[in-house]
């Protein structure tokens, strides 16, 4: 080893040579389609195996195959659609109302100083209120029927959408707006062709969160007074400690969440393919 300490001598050439170790990996998310599926299958397989062999007691977790059976029954009796369709329509109406109002108000906050000064504190005050706490109020305002459920879901999706949207508008590259002005584009053109597309990534990732909140609120609303709906179904099953049906209901919600997130993912890939 002593020869390596002597620099600039020919003996250095004979010193041990090693490949430079690689340390540049990671921090670059890639699409791996199957991993998510594998995790699901693995977890379910463990649960099935555990409940069958008995080291998970039937009171702790229902057997996945029983849950599946319950689901199939639900489908065959047509009850699934009786519960699913009112839930879906509440979700669609409520979330569409809340998200579109939220994007609208968020853009206005992003564009006008007075609206920003007036509304940002208000939004900050509304954001932390658990919207479920307001359900009785909504029942008085909008009636015990669908109205109060729409309102609850709309209100719950509204605030996170507003915050995400005005943050996204703030982050639009000012030099692009300057460019639009320098070419004499009208105010409306600048908003439509520069601000909105530029804010779209932020708006869509805000929408992901808003829609998850919408599902949570949907169930909450249905638990407090609905004959049909996934929430009502889960509440009923829970009251009877019928774990199979409880899990069947929860599974439907999860699937709903995955479907919504996939749809947003598709929209993102379609609208945002300009990002590398």
């Amino acid at each position, binding site marked *: 080893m002593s020869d390596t300490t002597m620099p600039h001598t020919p003996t250095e050439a004979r010193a041990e040579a090693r490949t430079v170790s690689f340390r540049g990996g990671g921090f670059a998310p890639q699409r791996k389609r199957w991993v998510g599926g594998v995790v699901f299958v693995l977890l379910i397989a463990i649960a099935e195996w555990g409940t069958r062999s008995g080291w998970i007691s039937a009171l702790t977790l229902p057997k996945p195959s029983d849950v599946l059976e319950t689901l199939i029954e639900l489908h065959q009796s047509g009850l699934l659609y009786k519960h699913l369709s009112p839930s879906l329509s509440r979700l669609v109406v409520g979330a569409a109302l809340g998200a579109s109002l939220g994007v609208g108000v968020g853009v206005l906050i992003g564009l006008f100083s007075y609206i920003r000064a007036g509304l940002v504190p208000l939004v900050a005050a509304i954001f932390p209120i658990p919207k479920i706490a307001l359900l009785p109020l909504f029942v008085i305002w909008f009636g015990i029927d669908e109205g109060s459920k729409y309102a609850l879901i709309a209100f719950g999706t509204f605030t996170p959408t507003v915050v995400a949207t005005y943050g996204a508008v703030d982050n639009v590259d000012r*030099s692009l707006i300057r460019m639009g002005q320098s*070419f004499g584009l009208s105010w409306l053109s600048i908003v439509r062709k520069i601000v909105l597309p530029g804010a779209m990534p932020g708006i869509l990732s805000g929408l992901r969160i808003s829609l998850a909140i919408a599902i949570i609120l949907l169930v909450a609303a249905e638990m407090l007074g609905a004959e049909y709906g996934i929430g009502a179904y889960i509440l009923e099953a829970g009251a009877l400690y019928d774990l199979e049906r409880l899990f069947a209901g929860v599974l439907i919600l999860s699937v709903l969440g995955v479907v919504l997130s996939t749809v947003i993912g598709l929209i993102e890939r379609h609208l945002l393919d300009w990002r590398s």
Partner: protein
Amino acid sequence: MDIRLENVSHSYDNFEVMRDISLEIPHGRIVCIVGPSGCGKSTLLRFIGGLERPKQGRVLQVGTPPADCLNPLTYIFQDFALLPWRSVAGNISLVLEDHGIKGAAAKEIIDDVLARTKLTDFAKALPKQLSGGMKQRVAIARALAVNPAVMLMDEPLSALDSQTRELLMDDLVSLWTRTPFTAVYVTHNLAEAVRLGHSIVVLSRRPGQIREIVHLDTPLAERQFGDPELDRQQRHLWQLMRDEARAADAELLDV
């Protein structure tokens, strides 16, 4: 159409940026503006383009722009300012749409400017697929599409490597030779200034004042890389700027 600046002075709050600048930008000429960092070159260009108003003095348009001119004062930015979600053709059509030019009429203009900037094959490409030099050519094509009376360029080549810069300078020269345009060209790079400028305005350090205006008579097309006369002018400009630049640099360090 000419541009005339009359006694333009400006300060941000109590921070004096430029003092008493009077300047004539004649039709069909390229006027280069050089000066040390922070002397107000970009600010001056924003005044000329109407993106900002000077505290004192005025910026005048002398004469009317030609009838087919859609946007008389048109910028080319250092950072290209292309919309990343629009294709090359889409970025050009952006500035035409507001003038009601769509469909076949727009396509004709787009094809023409893309051909002039040698980008015909890239009409459908997105900005992220282009190199820096090509992005700036798209920005130049976009500017040409609105038939500007005056082009305002703020260090348009500074973000590019030196080979690309040479190529783009050649492109600008050949564009100008075919159809002379009026331009105000802000740069740090004296080689660019002597290559492209019919006159070169040297500003002092902040507050920016005109130190000297150098006129170059060699036609643009005859200015070659390494031309001794241009080198002499470039050295002269550097003499003028060196002390200013050094002082400006020290000033920035003081802050």
